[in-house]
C-alpha cells in the first residue's frame, strides 16, 4: 500500500471521527495511538462494523466505521446496496442503516427504505434524520421517495422530518399529508405539534391544507386537523371550527372548542351561539374599523396612537396580524406609547411578538423594559429573568 493511500485513509478516518463526534448518537471513539496500517477492505470493514455493533462493542464499531469512511463513497455505497438485498440478514441491514446514518447523503436516501426491516423504524428514522440534517437536498429526495415506499416507511419519513424542526419541514409534511391519505392523521398531528414549537405564523401552504381538511368534513383526519389548527393558532379556521360545534360527535365538539379557545384566548366552551356572536363582532371590526385603527397606529398624534392600541388590545382574531402591526410601536420615542404597545402585545399573546419584545427589553426606560418582560413571560409561558441574552437564546431555540 502506498504512502499516499495510507494518508488518504487516515484523513478519511479523521473525517469519520469528526462526523461521529457531531452525530446524534455517536458511539465512543478510541484515540488512535501511533501509526497503524489499516489492512481492511470495504467489505471487511463493514463486516467488522456489523459484527461489533451486534456484539455491542461500540469502540470496535466506531473504528470499523472510521475505516469504512476512508474508502471512496461509491465503494461504501456498493456495500450498502448489497446489504439491502432481501436475502441478507436483518443485522446486516441494520448495520448498513447505521452506516447511512453516519456517512450517507441525500443521494443515498433511496437505500434507506430498502434497508428497512419490520421493527427497525427507529433505526430508519435516525438514519433519515441524520442525512436530512447534513444534506439540504434531502427533503426533495424524500418527497419523491415517499410515494414509492410502504406506509410504515412513509410514517418514519414523517417522524424523521419532524425532527428537523424547521418551517420547511412543516411544509414538507403538509405536502406529504395532502398527497398520501394513509399517513394523513398522524402527519397532521405532527404538523400541529411542530408548528406550535416554531415561530408563528406557520407556513401558508400548511395552514391552507389544514383548513381544507377541516372544511372537507368527513375525513378520517378531521380531528387531527382540528387540533392542528388550534396548535397553529390559525385564525382563518375559526368559521369552520364554529361550524363543527354543531356536530353530534361530543369528542369532535370538544376538540373544536379547544382549538377555538387556543386561537382566541377566550373561554366560551362549546357554545356555538356565543362563538358565532363573538366572531361576528370581530369580523365587523375587521371590516369597518381595522383600517382606521392601523392608520391611527402610525399617526403623529400620541392620543390617536394610544386609542388605536387600546382598541386593538381588545381584539382576539388574527392575533398574529395584529401583533405585527403593533410591534413597531415598541420602539416609539414616547415611552408611554411603547409601554402600552407591550401591554397590547401581552393581551394579544402572539408568538410573532417575541423578537420585537426582546429588542424592547434593551430600551433604557425601565417601564418599557418591565412591560416587555411581562409580555414575554405571558406569551411564552416561561418564567425567565429580565435578561436580554436569556430571552434571545430562548427565542432562538
Amino acid at each position, binding site marked *: 500500500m502506498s504512502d499516499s493511500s495510507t494518508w488518504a485513509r487516515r484523513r478519511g478516518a479523521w473525517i469519520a471521527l469528526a462526523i461521529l463526534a457531531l452525530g446524534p448518537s455517536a458511539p465512543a471513539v478510541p484515540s488512535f495511538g501511533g501509526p497503524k496500517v489499516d489492512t481492511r477492505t470495504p467489505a471487511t470493514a463493514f463486516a467488522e462494523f456489523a459484527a461489533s455493533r451486534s456484539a455491542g462493542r461500540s469502540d470496535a464499531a466506531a473504528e470499523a466505521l472510521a475505516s469504512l469512511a476512508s474508502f471512496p463513497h461509491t465503494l461504501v455505497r456498493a456495500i450498502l446496496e448489497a446489504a439491502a438485498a432481501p436475502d441478507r440478514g436483518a443485522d446486516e441491514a441494520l448495520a448498513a442503516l447505521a452506516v447511512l446514518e453516519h456517512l450517507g447523503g441525500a443521494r443515498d436516501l433511496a437505500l434507506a427504505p430498502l434497508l428497512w426491516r419490520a421493527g427497525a423504524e427507529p433505526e430508519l428514522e435516525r438514519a433519515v434524520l441524520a442525512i436530512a440534517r447534513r444534506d439540504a437536498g434531502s427533503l426533495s429526495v424524500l418527497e419523491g421517495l415517499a410515494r414509492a415506499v410502504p406506509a410504515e416507511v412513509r410514517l418514519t419519513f414523517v417522524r424523521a422530518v419532524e425532527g428537523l424542526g424547521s418551517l420547511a419541514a412543516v411544509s414538507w409534511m403538509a405536502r406529504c399529508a395532502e398527497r398520501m391519505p394513509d399517513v394523513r392523521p398522524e402527519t397532521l*398531528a405532527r404538523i400541529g405539534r411542530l408548528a406550535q414549537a416554531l415561530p408563528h405564523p406557520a407556513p401558508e401552504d400548511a395552514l391552507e391544507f389544514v383548513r381544507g381538511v377541516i372544511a372537507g368534513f368527513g375525513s378520517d383526519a378531521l380531528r387531527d386537523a382540528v387540533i392542528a389548527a388550534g396548535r397553529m393558532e390559525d385564525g382563518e379556521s375559526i368559521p369552520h371550527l364554529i361550524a363543527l360545534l354543531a356536530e353530534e360527535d361530543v*369528542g369532535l365538539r*370538544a376538540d373544536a372548542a379547544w382549538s377555538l379557545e387556543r386561537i382566541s384566548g377566550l373561554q366560551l366552551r362549546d357554545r356555538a351561539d356565543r362563538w358565532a356572536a363573538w366572531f361576528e363582532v370581530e369580523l365587523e371590526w375587521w371590516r369597518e374599523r381595522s383600517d382606521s385603527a392601523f392608520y391611527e397606529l402610525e399617526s403623529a398624534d400620541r392620543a390617536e396612537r394610544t386609542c388605536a392600541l387600546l382598541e386593538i388590545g381588545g381584539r382576539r382574531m388574527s392575533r398574529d396580524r395584529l401583533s405585527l402591526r403593533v410591534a413597531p410601536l415598541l420602539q416609539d420615542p414616547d415611552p408611554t406609547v411603547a409601554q402600552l404597545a407591550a401591554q397590547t402585545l401581552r393581551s394579544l399573546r402572539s408568538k410573532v411578538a417575541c423578537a420585537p419584545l426582546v429588542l424592547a427589553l434593551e430600551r433604557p426606560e425601565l417601564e418599557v423594559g418591565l412591560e416587555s418582560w411581562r409580555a414575554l413571560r405571558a406569551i411564552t409561558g416561561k418564567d425567565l429573568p429580565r435578561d436580554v441574552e436569556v430571552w434571545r437564546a430562548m427565542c432562538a431555540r
Partner: protein
Amino acid sequence: MKLMKIQTAPSSRRGSAMIAALLVVFAVATLSMIHVQLDLSKAREQRTAVDTKRAFYMAEAGLAEAFHGVVAGKSGNVGTPDEPARFANGIFFTTAEEEGLGRVTLTSTGMCGAGRATLSIVVERSSSAVGAMGFFGDESVSIEASALVDSYDSRNGAYSAGLLGIGANTGTQARVGSNDSLMVGGANGSTIVYGDAQPGPTGVLVRGRNTTITGTTAPFLTSTTLEAIDVPTYRNQGSIATSLLKPLVTVPVGETAYDELHVGALSKIVVTGPARIVVQNLIVDSLGEFAIDARKGPVEIYVTDWLAMKSGSRVSTGGADPRSVSLLVSADEAADHDGNGSIDQPVVLAATGSFEGTLYAPGAAVSIPSTLQVFGAASAKRLTIKSGAKMHFDVSLLEAGENETGLPRLMGWRLVELPNVPVVKLRYDALRNLIDAGLAPVKSATAHFDIGIFPP
C-alpha cells in the same frame, strides 16, 4: 251695689277661636299622622332592607353549610323547600345538582323575616389522588390494537355491560393521558376509548386504524407531575413464602413491613384490610394467587424493589371498591432480582384475573396484559395497555376520597331568581309561619342528605 259688668263678645264672634284652635289641632294631627306614616314607611323600608340583607347572608350560610357537607362526603343537599333547615332566626334550603366530572351546582335559598335571596355556586369535587388521572403515563402511553378503555361508577355497583345496554354500569368518561405522546390502536383490530385521550402539552396523539375515541383528544395545557411515593416505615416482619405444604397464608391486618412476599405455585397469599404493607419484593409465581380482601377496610401495598406477577399467576381483589385498594410501586431500577443473570424490570405484570384499585408506579414502565382487567386506574412512567386488554376507569376516583384533604374548588358564583316554591311565597316571616303551622325546621347541621339519597 255696683255690678261688675261682664263684657261678652258679640254673638256673631262666639266660638271663632275654638274653630281656629281646632283647625290648628287638626293640622298638627294631620302633620303628625303624615309623620308617623312616613316613619312607619321608612321603618318598613329599613326592615325590608335589613331582612333582604339577612336573607342574603342566610343564603350564604346555606352555601357554606352545603360546601361543608361536600367536604365531609355528603351530597350537598341541605333541607328541602318543604322542610327547610333552620339557622339562627332564619331558614334556608340548598339543592345540589350534579353537573358531571365532579362538578356540583349548589343553589341556596335563604329566608329571614320578609327577606328572600337565592345564590348559586359551582364547586368541583376534584381529587388530588393519582387515581383521578385515569390511565396515565409520564413519558408515554401506548394502547395497542383491539384494546378497550371505558368507564363505570363503582358507587352504582360492579362494572356491567348489561343486556343490550339495559342495566349497564358503563360510561364514556374514561381518562387516558400522558405528559408526552399517546399511541392508541394499531394496524389490526378496532381499539376503543370511551372517553378522553389527551397527550401532553408538547406531545402528540397517534391513532391507528379503526380507532375510536369518543371524548376529547386535545393536548393538556400543562404537565402533571407524578409525585414520588412516600413509603412509610414499619417494623419488619421478615419474609412470607407459600409452598405446597403451606398453601394459604393470610397477611395480618395492620401496618407491617416485609422483605418479601413470595407466592409459590398452587398456593395463595391473602391480604386482608385494613392493612398498610411495605414489601421489598412481591413475587407471584405461575399458578400462584395473590388476593386482596378490602371488604373490612382499605388495603395499601407499597412495593419498593420488585413487583413480579409472572405469567400464569393470578391476582384477585374480590370485587373491592377501587378506592379501597392501592398498589404503589416505588421501584424504578431494572436489576437482576431473581439471580438468573437476566435483568428484570421493576414491574412485571403478566398475571390473570382482575384488579379493582389504583396501580401507581411513577418510576417504572408498566405493561398491562390482556389477561388482567383493571377496574380503577393505573399510572406509570410508561404505560402500555396490551392488545386485547380491557381497562375500566372508575369515575368515583375523580372525587375526593374520605382520606383526602383537598377542598372542593369554587368554580363560580352568581345570584339567581327565587325558586317558585310555596315557602318562598309566604308573605311575612317564613320561620314564624312554619312554626305556627306546626312545622319546626331542623337545625342546619342535621339537615344534610347523603350521596345517593335525593331530597323528596
